[in-house]
C-alpha cells in the first residue's frame, strides 16, 4: 500500500552535538537508521608528518594537541615510547608524579565525557556544570604545576619538566578528600534517573566478540565485559605497585559505558591517594640532551588513556628527528564500530551512542 522512501540527512560538520567537526551521513527510513557513514578529516593538521621534521623534545607540545582534553596522557604515552627506544631511566619521584597527573587527567576527561553525554541527552547543562566544577579544580591543580590549563607540555623525555610546588600537595589532598562525595552526588542525580535509564539501557549494545574484533579499547571495551586494561595486562610505568580494581560491566550498552566512567573515576581517586602516600623525594628529571639521538630501531609505546589504548609508534634512524611518527589514536579505532551499533536504532540513539564512544576530533583526525 504505502511505499516509503529513505531520506539521507547530513549531520554536517557544523552541528551542535557532534563533539567537534565530525560529519555523519545517515540514511533514514522515518526515524530508523538504515545506514550511517561517518566522514571525518576536517581537523587534519598533519601532526604525523610534522613530527618527522622536529626533534624528539619538540614533538611533545604537538602531542598535547592530539586529544586536547587529556593532554597529560598524550605526553605520557609519547615520552614512554621515546624512553623505551632510547633506554632512558626515569627517577622514582617522576614516575609517581606522572601517575598522579595521568590519573587526575583521567578523572577530568571522564567528567567531561559524561557531562557532554548528558548534555546531548537534553539535560540542559546541569550535570555538565556540576561535573565542570570538579574539572575546574583539577585544571587549577595543573595550572599550579605547569602553568597551563589545557595543553600542558609537562612531561619530558627522562622525567618531568619541573617539580611540583609546595602548595600542590595540600590542594590535591583537599580535592581527593572531597571527590568521592562529589561522585556520590553525580550518582544521586543520574544513576537511577528513569528517563536516563530508558534512554540508555539496551541502546547501542556492543557484544564482546565484536568489540575485540574491532580493536576497541578503553572504557568501551570494558563496558562490554572484556576485562582488559593495559595497566594490568602490560604494566607500564609503576602501575604494578598500586592496588586498584578493573571494573567491568555486563551489557555493553550506553548505560554501561556511562557507568564504567563513573567507576573508573573512583578507581583513579584510589590510585592517586596511594601515589600521594608513597611519593618519594628526589629528582624529577634525568638530563637528556635537547637533540637526542636514539639508536636505530623502532618502538611501540602504549598506555591506557581515558579514551582507550593510546600508542605511539616511532621509527628512528639515529638522527635527532624521528623517521616515522605514527599515533594509534583510540578514538578513531573505537569509531569503527559506530555504524554497526547504530543501524536499526533511532536518530536520538545515534547521538548518544556517539557521545558514549567519546571521541575527540583532535585524535581522530590528527
Amino acid at each position, binding site marked *: 500500500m504505502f511505499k516509503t522512501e529513505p531520506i539521507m540527512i547530513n549531520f554536517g560538520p557544523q552541528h551542535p552535538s557532534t563533539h567537534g567537526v565530525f560529519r555523519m551521513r545517515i540514511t533514514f527510513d522515518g526515524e530508523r537508521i538504515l545506514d550511517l557513514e561517518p566522514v571525518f578529516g576536517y581537523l587534519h593538521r598533519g601532526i604525523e608528518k610534522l613530527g618527522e621534521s622536529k626533534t624528539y623534545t619538540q614533538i611533545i607540545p604537538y602531542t598535547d594537541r592530539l586529544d586536547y582534553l587529556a593532554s597529560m596522557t598524550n605526553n605520557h604515552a609519547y615520552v614512554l615510547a621515546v624512553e623505551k627506544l632510547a633506554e632512558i631511566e626515569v627517577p622514582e619521584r617522576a614516575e609517581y608524579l606522572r601517575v598522579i597527573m595521568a590519573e587526575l587527567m583521567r578523572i577530568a576527561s571522564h567528567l567531561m565525557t559524561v557531562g557532554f553525554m548528558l548534555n546531548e541527552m537534553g539535560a540542559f547543562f546541569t550535570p555538565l556544570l556540576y561535573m565542570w566544577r570538579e574539572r575546574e579544580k583539577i585544571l587549577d591543580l595543573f595550572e599550579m604545576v605547569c*602553568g597551563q590549563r589545557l595543553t600542558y607540555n609537562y612531561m619530558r623525555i627522562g622525567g618531568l619538566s619541573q617539580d611540583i610546588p609546595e602548595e600542590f600537595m595540600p590542594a590535591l589532598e583537599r580535592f581527593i578528600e572531597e571527590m568521592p562525595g562529589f561522585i556520590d552526588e553525580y550518582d544521586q542525580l543520574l544513576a537511577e534517573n528513569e528517563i536516563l535509564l530508558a534512554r540508555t539501557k539496551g541502546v547501542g549494545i556492543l557484544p564482546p566478540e565484536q568489540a575485540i574484533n574491532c580493536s576497541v579499547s578503553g572504557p568501551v571495551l570494558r563496558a562490554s565485559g572484556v576485562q582488559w586494561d593495559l595497566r594490568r595486562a602490560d604494566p607500564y610505568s609503576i602501575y604494578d605497585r598500586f592496588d586498584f580494581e578493573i571494573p567491568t560491566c555486563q551489557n555493553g550498552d550506553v548505560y554501561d559505558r556511562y557507568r564504567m566512567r563513573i567507576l573508573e573515576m573512583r578507581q583513579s581517586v584510589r590510585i592517586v591517594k596511594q601515589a600521594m602516600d608513597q611519593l618519594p623525594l628526589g629528582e624529577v628529571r634525568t638530563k637528556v640532551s635537547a637533540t637526542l639521538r636514539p639508536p636505530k630501531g623502532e618502538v611501540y609505546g602504549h598506555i591506557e588513556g581515558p579514551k582507550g589504548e593510546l600508542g605511539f609508534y616511532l621509527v628512528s634512524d639515529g638522527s635527532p628527528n624521528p623517521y616515522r611518527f605514527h599515533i594509534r589514536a583510540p578514538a578513531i579505532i573505537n569509531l569503527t564500530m559506530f555504524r554497526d551499533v547504530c543501524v536499526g536504532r533511532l536518530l536520538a540513539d545515534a547521538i548518544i551512542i556517539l557521545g558514549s564512544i567519546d571521541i575527540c576530533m583532535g585524535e581522530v583526525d590528527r
Partner: protein
Amino acid sequence: MTILEQFQQWLLNYWPSWAAYLVPALIAFIIIVIIVLVMVLMFIYMERRIIGRFQIRLGPNRAGPFGILQPVADAIKVLIKEDIVPIRADRWVHYWAPIITFFPALMIFAVIPWGQGAIFADLNIGILYVVAISSVGAIGIFMAGWGSNNKFSLVAGMRTIAQMVSYEIPLVLSIGGVLIIAGSLSMMDIVEAQNVPFFLLQPLGFVIFFIAAASEINRSPFDLLEAESEIVTGYHTEYSGMKFALFFFAEYTHAFALSTIAATLFLGGWRFALLPGPIWFFIKVLLVFIVLLWMRSTLPRVRVDQLMGFAWKFLFPLALINLFITATEAIIWPGFPWWLLFLNFAIAALLIVLWSGLFPVPGEGVSFKRYGRGIAKGMALTFKHLFRHPITVQYPEQRLTPARRFRGYQLVWYEDQCNGCRACARACPVSIIDIETRKGEEKGLVVEKLEVDFGRCLFCGLCVEACPVQALFMSRDYEKASYRREALVMNKEQFIAAPDKRSAYAYPDLEDEMPPQTLLAPPKEGR
C-alpha cells in the same frame, strides 16, 4: 457578573450600545495583552536566572541592574536581525506559521480569572475553549516545519503533531475529573467550587495534567521538537528575526497560559486568605512555572517512541481510571467532602505503583521500584544546589590571579644577560623566534632583532627552558587580544618593557615573589 460586564452595563447609560460594549472590551484586551507580554518577559528573565541558580552560576546580570533588561535586549536583538526566508521555501506558509502558533496561546488568556470577577469573558464553555484553541497551535508548528524546506524541520513537524495530539488526550481526561467535581465548564465556577483546592482532591489528575501540559508546551523533558542535539532546533531552524521572536514568545506565552490554567483548575485560582486575589494568583502561577523550570534543568530528554509509549500506555489509562473513580465518587458522595482527599491520595499512589510495574524499562523486566524515585532524587539534589553560592566570577571586575608558573602571553627578556646563543630559536617547535645578531664591541654577540610571532606561538615554554643564561622568562599576561594581526608579532622592545610580569615557569626560585594563585578549592588552613 464580571467586572467587565458591570462596567459595560454602567456605560450603557451614557453611550450608544455598540460603543458601550466595544470600548471596555478593547481596553480590557489591551490590558490583558500588556500583562501577558510583561509576564512573558519576566518569565524569560526568570528562566535564565533561576536555571542558572540551579546550576550554581549566576544568570545574565549585565543588561540593566541584575540583568532585568536582558529580555528587552533579546527582543531588540531579534528585531534588528535580517529576516531570511530560504529560497525554495513556501513563502506564505513560512510567513503565517509563527502567527498561527502565537495567537492561540494569546487567546487562552481570554478566559483566565485573575481575581474575583476579573475575567475578560466568562464563557460557559471556558475550559473547552482553552482545549480547542490550544489544538490549533499544532497546525502552526507543522506549517513551520513544512514551510522551511528543510528535512530536519519536517521531521520536527511530524514529531510535533504526534506529540501534541497524543498528549491532548490525557490532558483533557484529567481536566474531566475536575469538571465532575466542579459541575461546570466555566472557569469562574471552577474557582468558586474550590473550597478545597482540587490538587488535593485529584492528586493523580494534577500529576497527569502537569506532565501532559509540560508536553503540550514542548518543555523539557519533552522538548524533542527543539532538541538542539538532534534536529538543530527543529521547526524553527530556518527562522530569524521577528518570526523567530514570535516562536520564542509563543513558547513562553503558552507556558504562562498553562501555568495559569494549572493554577486555576488545581490550585484554587485567586482564592486564599488575607492577600487580595490577583497577588495569590500570580504567586501560584510563579510556583507552577518554577516547578517547570526545575524539571527542565534536571531531567534529560525522552526519546520520541518512549514519549508516545508514555502517553498512550501510562498516562492515558491512568487518566481514564481517574475519571472513572471520580465519577464513582460523585455518585456515592455527591458533595465531595474534604476527607475524600485521603482516599484519593491512596488510590493515586496505588495506581502509580501498579502501573509503573506494568511499564518496565526495556531490558530490565517488570519492576515495582521504578515509580519516579530516581527522578525525585535527582530533583532533590538540584533543589539543594539552588541555595548554594554561585561560583561565577564577574570578569573583568573580578579577576583571578593566574598560577605562579603561568605560561602567559608574551616573553620577558633581559637584554644585558642574553648572549645571542639562539638556543631559544632552535628549541621552538614552531620556529617562530626570529633572531639576528651582530658582533658586539666586546666579545660576544648582540641581538639586533628578536621577533616572535605570537599568532602562531604554542606557549609551550621550551624556549624558556632552553635558555642557558636565564635571560628569557614567560609572562603572566593573558589578555592580549588585538585588532590587527600584525600587532601579534612582537619585537624586543616590547619584551624588555615588561619585567614585572615575569612568570616563575622554569625558575623555581622566583616562586616566592609571586602572588598566590586563586583556587576554586583552596586547601584548608593548617596544612
